[in-house]
């Protein structure tokens, strides 16, 4: 392969690799955010379980505090916890996939790099001979 073609290929690979890395970090960030939300909801769940049934619960929807039924509130919180856990799992899966792709890309990049180096060496030798 000609050196220029090789270089172009190398650059393309680098681009895709960078994109993969970005996606990876983004997913990572989302996942940790979800993790925080999960913890928060767990605390809420604990508190809701502790308070007695006669207490009043409100939910902040936009700028308004809307009164909620305690049972309803508990169920909502539980559902939210489950949802968040699912989301976390989904994100983790996508992260794994992305990592695998990134690994493959990295190997490709290394290979191309080696090829380029070989070409350079080969080019150098005839020049020296000259």
């Amino acid at each position, binding site marked *: 392969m000609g050196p220029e073609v090789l270089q172009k290929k190398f650059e393309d690979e680098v681009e895709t690799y960078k994109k993969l890395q970005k996606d990876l970090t983004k997913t990572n*960030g989302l996942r*940790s955010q979800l*993790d925080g939300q999960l913890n*928060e909801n767990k605390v809420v769940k604990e*508190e*809701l379980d502790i308070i007695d049934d006669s207490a*009043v619960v409100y*939910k902040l929807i936009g700028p308004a505090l809307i009164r909620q039924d305690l049972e309803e509130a508990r169920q909502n919180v539980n559902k939210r916890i489950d949802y968040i856990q699912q989301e976390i799992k989904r994100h983790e899966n996508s992260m794994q996939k992305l990592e695998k792709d990134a690994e493959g890309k990295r190997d490709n990049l290394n290979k191309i790099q080696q090829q380029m180096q070989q070409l350079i060496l080969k080019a150098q030798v005839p020049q020296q001979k000259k």
Partner: protein
Amino acid sequence: MCDENNIKVLHMWWMELPHGVFEITRDLDKIVFIAGTRALPSQLIQNKTCLRRVEMMKEKEESNASDDGKEDESASALRPDTSMISLKENLESLAQLQKVHEERLFICQTEISQLKKFRTDYLHLQKRLKTLPDKTTYDVMVPFGSLAFMPGRLVHTNEILVLLGDNWFAERSAKQAIEIVKRRLKDCDEKIKTAETTEKIHLNWLKETTEVLKGDMGDQVDIVEKVTEEEYQKSREEHKKSVAREYGTVREKVSSETESVASKSEGPLYERLSEEDKRTYEDIMKRLDELELEEENDGSSEEEDEGDNEDNNWNEEYEEEEEEEEEEEEVPMLDRGVREEPKLIEAAALEVKAKPSAAAAVIPKKREKLKRRVSWADDIKPLETIIPDNTSDDIFRIKYSSACELSPADEGGEGAGGATAMMAESQAGRSLMVRSPSDIYKVFGGATASHEPHPRGILKKSSSLPLQGESESNNKGGWRYAPESVEIVTEDMDDLPLPKPLRPSPPLKRKSLQPAFSYKVVERNVGEKEERNVGEKEESSDTQTGAIAQPESDDGTQTKKISKFKASRMKK
């Protein structure tokens, strides 16, 4: 007028908190007046600019996420191509690593300070909540926007809207709110603890990298001491002498301690000994270290007489090891009389087995002096480290498995070899007290001793061997096993039975290791015919090798047999 206006303000007296906002609000149905105007609650709610919820948790998480991302990137930046970097670049990357560590540490510390701030806030809140319900209304200056305050009243002092998290509020009383605060304080404290441990870890990492960096930079220098060969030898000699001296003093100290201790009452020996033991233990450990060093020195040189030295040292170390174990197992064995007994036996065993080098001879004496009990732990692992380097050829090494018997070769081996034999034995045996000669079998017996006390005889069967009374004493082959009491059975010559072994234990199971004799001492009535008959008997009955055959008798025949000597005496 304005001053007198009892302005009932729907005011939110809120405390902004990282983990939630505690709002003390009025019932929304109540009428609201601000400067005389009547406003709808909903409008006022809309105007609740003060209703801010600081989601510090979220912010913190985001900052964490970004930090993690940053860390990952920085870490990954350091990963590639380290093999191709020159030294300078290595240094650079090390410096970079150090920087990263510092950053992380900084982040940790900020986290911790933040958590601590939360903690103090919660404590303040708790205090405030306790005193809040004391009055039904408070006159306060209410913040109005960001630049103004207004005189107003704090009402509904016992109704507190607590933010539980994720846009959920709960109306609680002051007391209940205090409970919530307590729980949050607990969480906070736990978080602080974990953060502090991570901070410590980061600190250590940072310390290590700085040390490495310093080393690379050349602040550290190889300490090179130039010494001629003669000086080196001289110094070694002196070192050895001083070590020996030290050792002697240590031993004396130890012995004096134990003696003084032993002279006191035996009841509280327990506690006293444990204290002494610790000290002596430390001394002995120190001594061990010195000996180790010596060993290394000895091992490295080719000029000295390694064999004897190593033997000496080895034996000494071995002794040290024993003492250690003594101390460790001292607890149940505080009886002086008991201690002396096994020690004597040990001494005897040592002399028999170990090469009679000077050190070995000295050891038993010293043992007696010490009045210690030597016991054998099943695992004498530390000894492994003391044994001088494996490459030296002078040490005769025998490999053992735990269940094997001593081979006679040991006794011919060197002191080191012999001692290793003892070590193996101990590994095989139990840590029993050897109170009588028969216990030796149990302790050193090995696997076979448990289910078969009968030893394998090494004496060949021969017709010239005398019978009966001396049979028990001919235990050369079977000395290791506890001989059981043997019943004396007399039988008629005619009633010599077929070769049917009547042994108390079942040796038939093991063909190879059949007992030397049946443990039945048979006395014969007839004098002259005995030997011949015995010879016949042995040949006919004995399927064993090297066994001292005894005349075997049936269960039924219990005729008394007299030994030939007795017979001859009787005749006289």
